[in-house]
């Protein structure tokens, strides 16, 4: 085929209505998971190679975003502001399949849906996010998550935690249990602690918030701790691993959290439990014994199953944190690699970025950024780049970052779903 014939085909395709284009005879890429990773990847694939037949498999008709969901818990924002549909994604010519992917046959190159339908693919991208490792924390199972919400997948759990805080009398003890690494959104538990402290300070000032941590260090730690000392003195207490912070079991009936150093009976308990890659990763054979998915840092192709790529929280991405920005950044690099591989080429080494804002109060934002390249089989920090917001910055800088945080959310959700 000459380039001219090809361009002719390409422009003819562009004139066709979306459904016709979605069924074009190009190579088939199936993407499983419609979050920041999967929806981004599907759109980037179509943009880079309009003749690809791209299918996005996602069980939920509505995506509920985790970034900014801590503001929903703190009563600063409504859940509706976190929710996005797939109309615009479908309008790009992507076939959106509202179903649960239950199995993958890497040899036959097909994805099986809950109703038994098989979707054949030339390359598969999995962006399944996280699943809770039920039972890893003794006493914490799906029933316990009603009494002690995790709220680590945004949606009903987010509202549940908010309602429990709203129903609590002033003077109550709120406890957050933070997990050991790795987990989705490393600064998330501490942003949540901040915004719950903000809610308590303004609405229930006699209350106390305890953060029981399975770690001795956390993301943006110095910035958070300086802000807590300034904004929430006496209200918020962080208990690190070395001071008995690790929660070893819970009792949902009495909202009790047990550590090696004692028991804490909470009025409201938010248990952020250990996690693993979303379930389809295990079914596809791309998760290792850690529960997460090892990948090639150039292509995001699984090191366990050729032809299957993994992006976002589920992937073991070296120095890159499990964040929405990272998932979006990885998804676009992965899309470029998939297009190159389908054409028989060799993908170039990508350069990736992460940016992550946290709110300590509605007008107090802090951030961390990083730049990453493949190195030694992993994604590594570019030395000298990235880092956190300056310590001792004036409040004007914090206020500016709070505005940028909101702008970031609008932009990334607009790019991915709008």
């Amino acid at each position: 085929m000459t380039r001219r014939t090809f361009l002719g085909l390409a422009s003819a395709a562009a004139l066709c209505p979306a459904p016709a284009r979605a069924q074009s005879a190009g190579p088939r890429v199936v993407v499983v998971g419609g979050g920041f990773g999967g929806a981004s990847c599907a759109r980037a694939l179509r943009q880079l190679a309009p003749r690809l037949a791209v299918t996005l498999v996602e069980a939920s008709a509505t995506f509920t975003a985790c970034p900014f969901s801590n503001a929903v818990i703190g009563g600063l924002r409504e859940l509706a502001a976190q929710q996005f549909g797939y109309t615009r994604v479908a309008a790009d010519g992507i076939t959106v399949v509202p179903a649960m992917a239950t199995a993958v046959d890497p040899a036959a190159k097909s994805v099986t849906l809950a109703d038994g339908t098989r979707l054949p693919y030339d390359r598969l991208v999995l962006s399944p996010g996280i699943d809770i490792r039920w039972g890893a924390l003794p006493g914490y199972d799906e029933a316990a998550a009603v009494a002690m919400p995790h709220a680590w997948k945004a949606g009903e759990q987010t509202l549940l935690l908010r309602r429990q805080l709203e129903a609590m009398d002033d003077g109550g003890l709120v406890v957050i249990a933070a997990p050991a690494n790795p987990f989705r959104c490393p600064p998330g538990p501490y942003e949540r602690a901040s915004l719950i402290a903000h809610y308590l300070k303004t609405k229930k000032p006699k209350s106390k918030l305890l953060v029981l941590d399975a770690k001795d260090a956390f993301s943006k730690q110095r910035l958070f701790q300086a802000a807590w000392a300034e904004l929430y003195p006496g209200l918020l207490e962080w208990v690190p691993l070395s001071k008995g912070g690790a929660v070893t079991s819970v009792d949902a009936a009495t909202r009790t959290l047990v550590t090696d150093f004692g028991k804490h009976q909470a009025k409201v308990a938010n248990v952020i439990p250990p996690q693993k890659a979303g379930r389809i990763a295990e079914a596809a054979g791309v998760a290792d014994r850690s529960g997460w998915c090892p990948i090639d840092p150039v292509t995001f192709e699984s090191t366990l199953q050729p032809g299957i790529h993994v992006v976002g929280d589920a992937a073991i991405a070296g120095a890159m944190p499990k964040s929405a920005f990272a998932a979006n950044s990885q998804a676009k690099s992965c899309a470029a690699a998939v297009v190159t591989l389908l054409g028989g080429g060799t993908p170039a080494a990508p350069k990736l970025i992460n940016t992550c804002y946290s709110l300590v109060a509605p007008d107090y934002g802090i951030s961390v950024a990083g730049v990453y390249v493949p190195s030694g089989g992993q994604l590594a920090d570019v030395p000298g780049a990235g880092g956190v917001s300056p310590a001792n910055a004036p409040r004007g800088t914090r206020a500016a970052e709070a505005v940028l945080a909101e702008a970031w959310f609008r932009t990334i959700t607009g790019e991915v779903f709008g």
Partner: protein
Amino acid sequence: MAKALAAAIGLVSIAAAVTASAASGQPPPGAAACSGCHPASARVTSPVVRLAGLERDAIVRALQEFRSGQRAGTIMDRIAKGFTDEEIQALAAWFAAQPK
């Protein structure tokens, strides 16, 4: 025979579809990540500057000044330090060539 033909057609269509992207050119390393904050879609409004169609020299200057600390930034000062002169040139050329 029919099977072999179908397979051959499959290969041709894969190669053809992918030639398209080679013709249009993939963005240079790092470029795809920028739209995490800098809107690429015309439907997104943000106080953060849109990069498509900016003047090439202006992009180079901004990134170099963020990198050296000469220009104050909230976060671009930290990100620009991760890019070499060659990468900055490639990014600037790419964004300058994109339609506004």
